[in-house]
C-alpha cells in the first residue's frame, strides 16, 4: 500500500493545481498601480481588466493578500441604509454579491440570513420606521417588525421585559447576508491575475511623487515604479499614505474589535444587531458566534485587543442571549477603521491628478467590496467618477456637504 501511494505521488500526470498563477517580477512602469491588496484593491484590479480591458495593472501589498480589514471584519452584507445615496450604493453591491461566487468560481459561502436591527427605545423605533420607508422607496426589502414577529424570526432572542433594555421591535432586512471574507479577496485576486494583473505582496510604498507630465512616481522598498494612474485602497493607513502625496483626509484611525466564540450547535439563523447595545452577532457555518461591538473610544494605530471590549460586549450579549453564559470566547482581534465625520466613505478624485482615493470605510467597508471595486475601476479607466460614488467625493467636506445632510434633498441624483 505505501508503495502504491508513493508511485501515485511521483507520477507526473497528477499535478497539483496552483490556485494563483505564478508571481511575475516587479516592473518599473504600469498603466495603473493599486496600493493595497485587500478586497477593495483586488476587486478594482479585477473590474479594470474585465470591464475596461486594462490589464497592465500592479497591485502592491505591504503584507500578504487580505491581511488587513478584509480579514478582520464580521462579514455582514446589507443595504438598509438611511441616506438614499448610501442605500442605493449598497443595494448595487448586493446585486453584484448575489452572482459573485459563480462568476469568480470560488465558494464565498454567501448566506442570506436576514438582518435584524433591534430597537430598544421609542426613538429607535422611529428611526427604524424612517429607514424602512427610505429603503422601500428605493426598492430595498426592509420593514419594521414588532415583538410577535420577532419571536418567530429569532426565537432564541430574550424578549423578556424584565431586562435593562427590553426589545420593542426591529428593522428587518431579509436579504441581509454573511460571506467568507478571505475567499472574496482570493477570488478577485485569481480572477485579476488570470487577466494579466500582477499582484506583488511584501511590497511597501514608502514615497509618492506627482510628476509634471501627470504620471505618478512611487517609491517602494523594492525600487521605484512609474504609474499612469494610482488607486489608493489602504483602509486603516489611509491618512499616512495620503500624507505622502500631500492630501489631508477627514479621517481618524480608530481600532474596531471583534471576537468569536467556540463552535456551538447551530441556533442563530438571522444576523442580530443592536445599535443601543453596540452588538452585532451572527453564527458562522462552523457554529462560531462572530461578535462585534462599538469602535474603541480613542484613535490608535495599534491592533491590540482589550478586556474592556470583551467585558462590555458580553454584558450586553448576555441580556439578549442569557443561555450563552458558559460559552467561551475563542479569539479576539482588532482592525484599524477609517472613521469619517459623516459615517460615509471617501471615494473618487483627489487634488492630485491621476491619484484616486478609496478610503473612509470605517466599520462599513466589506459589504461594499464589489460595487466599490467596480466604481473605482471605472474612475481609474475614464477619469470620471460614476454617479453612484459622486456624493462620496473628498471635496464634499470643503463644500460643507456631508452625505448625512444631503440625504433628504437629493435622492441619489
Amino acid at each position, binding site marked *: 500500500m505505501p508503495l502504491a501511494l508513493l508511485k501515485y505521488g511521483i507520477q507526473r500526470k497528477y499535478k497539483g493545481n496552483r490556485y494563483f498563477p505564478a508571481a511575475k517580477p516587479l516592473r518599473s512602469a504600469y498603466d495603473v498601480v493599486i496600493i493595497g491588496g485587500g478586497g477593495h484593491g483586488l476587486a478594482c484590479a479585477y473590474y479594470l481588466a474585465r470591464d475596461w480591458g486594462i490589464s497592465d495593472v500592479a497591485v502592491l501589498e505591504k503584507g500578504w493578500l487580505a491581511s488587513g480589514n478584509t480579514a478582520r471584519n464580521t462579514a455582514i452584507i446589507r443595504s438598509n441604509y438611511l441616506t438614499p445615496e448610501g442605500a442605493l450604493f449598497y443595494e448595487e453591491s448586493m446585486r453584484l454579491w448575489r452572482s459573485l461566487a459563480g462568476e469568480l468560481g470560488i465558494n464565498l459561502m454567501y448566506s442570506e440570513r436576514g438582518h435584524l436591527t433591534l430597537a430598544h427605545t421609542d426613538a429607535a423605533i422611529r428611526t427604524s420606521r424612517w429607514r424602512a420607508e427610505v429603503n422601500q422607496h428605493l426598492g430595498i426589502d426592509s420593514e419594521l417588525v414588532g415583538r410577535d414577529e420577532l419571536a418567530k424570526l429569532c426565537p432564541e432572542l430574550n424578549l423578556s421585559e424584565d431586562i435593562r433594555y427590553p426589545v420593542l421591535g426591529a428593522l428587518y432586512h431579509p436579504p441581509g447576508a454573511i460571506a467568507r471574507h478571505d475567499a472574496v479577496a482570493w477570488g478577485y485576486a485569481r480572477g485579476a491575475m488570470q487577466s494579466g494583473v500582477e499582484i506583488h505582496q511584501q511590497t511597501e510604498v514608502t514615497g509618492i511623487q506627482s510628476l509634471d507630465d501627470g504620471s505618478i512616481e512611487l517609491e517602494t522598498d523594492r525600487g521605484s515604479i512609474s504609474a499612469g494612474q494610482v488607486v489608493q485602497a489602504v483602509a486603516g493607513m489611509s491618512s499616512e499614505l495620503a500624507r505622502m502625496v500631500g492630501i*489631508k483626509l477627514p479621517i*481618524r484611525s480608530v481600532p474596531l474589535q471583534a471576537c468569536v466564540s467556540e463552535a456551538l450547535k447551530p441556533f442563530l439563523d438571522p444576523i442580530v444587531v443592536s445599535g443601543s447595545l453596540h452588538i452585532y452577532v451572527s453564527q458562522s457555518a462552523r457554529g462560531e458566534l462572530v461578535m462585534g461591538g462599538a469602535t474603541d*473610544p480613542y484613535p490608535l494605530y495599534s491592533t*491590540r485587543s482589550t478586556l*474592556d471590549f470583551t467585558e462590555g460586549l458580553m454584558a450586553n450579549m448576555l441580556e439578549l442571549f442569557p443561555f450563552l453564559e458558559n460559552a467561551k470566547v475563542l479569539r479576539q482581534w482588532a482592525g484599524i477603521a477609517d472613521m469619517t465625520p459623516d459615517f460615509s466613505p471617501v471615494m473618487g478624485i483627489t487634488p492630485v491628478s491621476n491619484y484616486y482615493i478609496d478610503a473612509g470605510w470605517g466599520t462599513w467597508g466589506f459589504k461594499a467590496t464589489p460595487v466599490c471595486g467596480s466604481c473605482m475601476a471605472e474612475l481609474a479607466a475614464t477619469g470620471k467618477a460614476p454617479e453612484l460614488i459622486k456624493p462620496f467625493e473628498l471635496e464634499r467636506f470643503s463644500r460643507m456637504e456631508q452625505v448625512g445632510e444631503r440625504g433628504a434633498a437629493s435622492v441619489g441624483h
Partner: protein
Amino acid sequence: MKIIDCPLNGPRNAQEFICAGEVKQEPSQDAAIDEWADFVFLENNLKGVVHEWWCHVASSYWFVVTRDTATERIIATYRPDEFFASQRQTEGADSE
C-alpha cells in the same frame, strides 16, 4: 492604556475620560471656507506622537494629553495653560 494622570484629579481609570481629538488652531472668523472646512473636518491623524484634548467626564475638566498613537503610550498630561505656555516657549526658541 488603563490609567490617565488627570492634572486635576490625579490618576483615574481611562473609562472616565473622553478623547476630543487633535489640538488645533481655530481659524479667524473671516477665514475662507476652505480653512474652516479644514479645521472642522480634516485631521492630521498622525501615527506617532500627538497632542489631544481630553476631558474627565465626571468633573467636566478639559486638559491636553500627549500620547503615541502607534504604541498607545501616554507621554504626558498638561493643564491647558501649562500646555500653551510651553508651546509658546518652544515657538519662541524656534524663531531665535
